[in-house]
């Protein structure tokens, strides 16, 4: 069979990584002064920007206000230049709506919405370059942005994707690996408690393999948490030093 070999005999993937290795992650918080919270993350070549506004009064119809908690509103948009071929519709298409809903589910599980009744929290995520793992990058960027805005959360939400090739579970898939068509799973985790915020897979995978793939994704998410934790602590330390006592 011609084509790319996703996992070589020595155990190397297309970009030279090992099966359980993550791509390089770089993140920054507080990139937009005008938003309440913002963050930018790069996972390998996937780049995502998240912006958070809130909690504020419900915009539009007051009837949508929930009496005991806050409404979380997520919007996903991918730039027209983010994929190999120029995209026609940056937002409003089915995939963007679905991603928006998934992000909303994820963050409703993590944000302590009971502390802000009758209000709304807006999370806008934009993918600037998509090289696989876009859901994960969006969740990670949005977590940092929500933290930057000072909105109380139970814990970080760390996400990673995983796939299954030749009997081995691969963590953090790139676009080439996703396009190959094998089973792929996206997992969003609350690391401290080990709780799953969202698990998504729409491919066929034998149930015997599910546990291994899930564990690979969970371990990768925990690794992402270590990195994000470091970024946030550094940011907090710097701000604390500047503020003085």
């Amino acid at each position, binding site marked *: 069979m011609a084509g790319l070999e996703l996992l070589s005999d020595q155990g190397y993937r297309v970009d030279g990584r090992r099966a359980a290795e993550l791509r390089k992650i770089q993140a920054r918080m*507080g990139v937009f002064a005008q938003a*309440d*919270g913002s963050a930018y993350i790069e996972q390998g070549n996937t780049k995502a920007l998240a912006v958070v506004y*809130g*909690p*504020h009064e419900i915009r539009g119809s007051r009837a949508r206000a929930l009496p005991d908690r806050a409404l979380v509103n997520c919007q996903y948009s991918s730039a027209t230049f983010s994929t190999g071929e120029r995209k026609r519709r940056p937002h409003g298409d089915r995939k963007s709506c679905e991603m928006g809903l998934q992000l909303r589910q994820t963050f409703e599980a993590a944000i*302590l919405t009971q502390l*802000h*009744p*009758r*209000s709304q929290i807006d999370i806008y995520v934009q993918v600037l370059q998509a090289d696989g793992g876009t859901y994960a990058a969006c969740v990670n960027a949005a977590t940092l942005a929500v*933290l*930057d*805005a*000072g*909105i*109380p*959360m*139970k*814990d*970080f939400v760390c996400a990673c994707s995983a796939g299954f090739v030749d009997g081995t579970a691969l963590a953090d898939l790139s676009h080439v690996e996703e396009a190959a068509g094998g089973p792929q799973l996206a997992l969003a985790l*609350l*690391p*401290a*408690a080990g709780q799953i915020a969202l698990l998504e897979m729409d491919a066929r995978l034998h149930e015997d393999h599910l546990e291994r793939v899930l564990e690979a994704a969970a371990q990768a998410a925990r690794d992402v948490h270590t990195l994000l*934790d470091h970024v*946030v*602590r550094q*940011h*907090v*330390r*710097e*701000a*604390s*030093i*500047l*503020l*003085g006592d």
Partner: protein
Amino acid sequence: MAMEMRLPVARKRLSESLGRESKKHLVVPGDTITTDTGFMRGHGTYMGEEKLIASVAGSVERVNKLICVKALKTRYNGEVGDIVVGRITERRRSAEDELAMRGFLQEGDLISAEVQAVFSDGAVSLHTRSLKYGKLGQGVLVQVSPSLVKRQKTHFHDLPCGASVILGNNGFIWIYPTPEHKEEDAGGFIANLEPVSLADREVISRLRNCIISLVTQRMMLYDTSILYCYEASLPHQIKDILKPEIMEEIVMETRQRLLEQEG
């Protein structure tokens, strides 16, 4: 016409130039603050499985038995007695309203007020019952993060440099020319529309730029810090204050003066 252009440079950590370490206990969400159940939990924490866990990223503050985590940046949360500055966007329509208030305060007016009560869902009720509150006339509004406004006994300051400032707890700061005489009878409902002199306008612009530089370098805002920053900026032209290197220099000088004053 002369133009100034700048090229991008790698940003450096501001804290390194200060050479200090933070002495506070810094936490991120998910961190266990303590397993001692004797403490009361305040803002920024929640109880999970016999432990007190942080829910925001910030520094832990302990007052006797109360533990709370102060986040770096928060939306304004009203407390009774706070001074706020804001613009009227919508009015509640009721009978007494129509008769009395509409003549004084219209939609779109900028006002200063005091927080009277806080509702359970976070909404605040404001009143302008004292003569020092009310409609704001001519001046400059600066919007900053509420966490940078220091809590003090009074938020209305008449600075010796020739302007007055209202430091709203909600992060809205109003700079205006010091009125020559206090109008006792009119209170805050008649706007003063006399033209402001050039000297006063320069003082106000300089103050506004100084406040912006303090905020960019994340310094707490209160009357002394604003005044010291104003004095440190006098050798520079007003428009130069916003340049990054001059901003750093001025704020560094302000920091030093404040440290000398304390110690």
